[in-house]
């Protein structure tokens, strides 16, 4: 059996320790965050683990006004390009949703995470959501 290079639980624990863990492809150098089984550029499964810069740039966003069960709108969801190349989706926190405008695109953010407890003691998994703050 092959080993999974960096599991969700390890990645989540990294975030709780203040680190953005990820994988660097040993064949082409591409950085894969969040982690996956193979390189998103060349398909190689030869990786080294590393910790990457928790910095990025907003590429797009929205303000959710009607949310799924269990969420309290309004809140901002954004897609961020990390300094090392990958894109991630998370919540832009620390700003008034009413003040979110197209000017956000291109703004620099720091990257953290919110850990979400399981839905019930009997079932579900502990989840995570990336959390961005304007620099």
């Amino acid at each position, binding site marked *: 059996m092959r080993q999974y290079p960096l599991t969700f639980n390890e990645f989540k624990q990294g975030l709780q320790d203040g680190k953005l863990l990820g994988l660097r492809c040993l064949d082409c150098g591409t950085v894969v965050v969040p982690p996956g089984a193979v390189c998103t550029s060349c398909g190689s499964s030869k990786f080294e683990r590393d910790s990457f810069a928790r910095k990025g740039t907003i590429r797009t966003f929205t303000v959710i*006004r009607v949310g799924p*069960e269990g969420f309290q709108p309004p809140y901002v969801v954004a897609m961020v390009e990390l300094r090392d190349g990958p894109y*991630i989706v*998370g919540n832009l926190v620390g700003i008034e949703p009413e003040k979110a405008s197209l000017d956000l695109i291109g703004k620099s953010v720091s990257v953290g995470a919110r850990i979400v407890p399981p839905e019930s003691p009997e079932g579900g998994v502990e989840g995570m*959501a990336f959390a961005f703050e304007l620099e």
Partner: protein
Amino acid sequence: MREVVVLGVGMTKFGRSEHSMKEMFSMAALEALEESGLESKDLQALFIGNVLGGFEEGQMNIAPFLADEIGMRHGAPATRYEGACASATVAIRHAALMVGSGVYDLVMAGGAERTTIMGTPLATKTFAMGSHSEYERFTGITFPGIFAMVAHQYCAKYGIALADLKMSMARTAVKNHHNGTLNPLAHFKKEITVETVLNGPMIADPLQLFDCCPFSDGAAAIVLADAAKFKNKVRTPVYVAGTGQGSAGSTYRQKDLTRMAAREAAVRQAYDQAGIGPSDVDVCELHDCFTIAEVVALEMLGFAEFGQGPAAVDRGDTSLTGRIPINPSGGLKAKGHPIGATGAAQAYEIVKQLRGECGERQVNGAKIGLVDTLGGDFSTVCSLVLRRD
């Protein structure tokens, strides 16, 4: 590949229904069989699109129950296909491939969905299950939210003012609602104006209520057969000239949300197999789950240059009498969106258009039609090219 012919189509009225999914599908399926002049015991296999049956009616593995409900003989295989909103089109494509490759001579494909029974909070939660369950779900992202991010990224990429893009989006909603008034099976049959759209409540900035399609209930079905053996059974044979399907990962892996690799691959396969290009298409049903979705689809399907989708809308290219009529049925926006049935309803409309049976919303002289159905965060997209002689 053998030539595949459409023998019959059927569809329920879309909207809120008191019927169970089995009842809805039966109504659509028996209509399609009647058109075909065949009986259900003649069908060799059933291909079903259904997404949320477990949440809606507590019904898992729905395909065998639907097959039994319409009287297919026990022993004929019935399979559920799930590709989010593209499910029925994926089912139809696989049905066409199985007939084309000679596995079967006569099959039915279609879809059924009963979304409204869930209520909006559960429906929004289950729809959001189409996003990556580890790395996106807990952000509270929604489908409107995904397409809202498409709209904002589109503005940034092409340097277009949000107010201008929103005007093109609003015109798209107005056009599709107008088409819906001409479709007796549509969920909404009400004219709206640009002001209706721009004054609606905000759902996910910049998408307002009338930028979004509704949750609907409904079913649709299509009978496909080997053309050599069966085309003489119908007066106006319509052929499956090409199909295509593509996949792509989550939004953050796709990066540029204004270009959808799965859709561009799917439509290219379908065009190539049919031996046509976008300028040959007379009528198109495309996946307008949100107004911005229709605007960007125009570009990816080849009906407008990249960055010129809004201009095509503003010129009226997409109206019933325009250069390339889009969503004459009213689209998901007005006809409605029973997710697992949507692709089959798009195929229903194109078959009816090619036969010249669409009354006031008929696109005159249509000979080649395109179906484009998008599932999830554009992670599953499926295309069909249909044509008549």
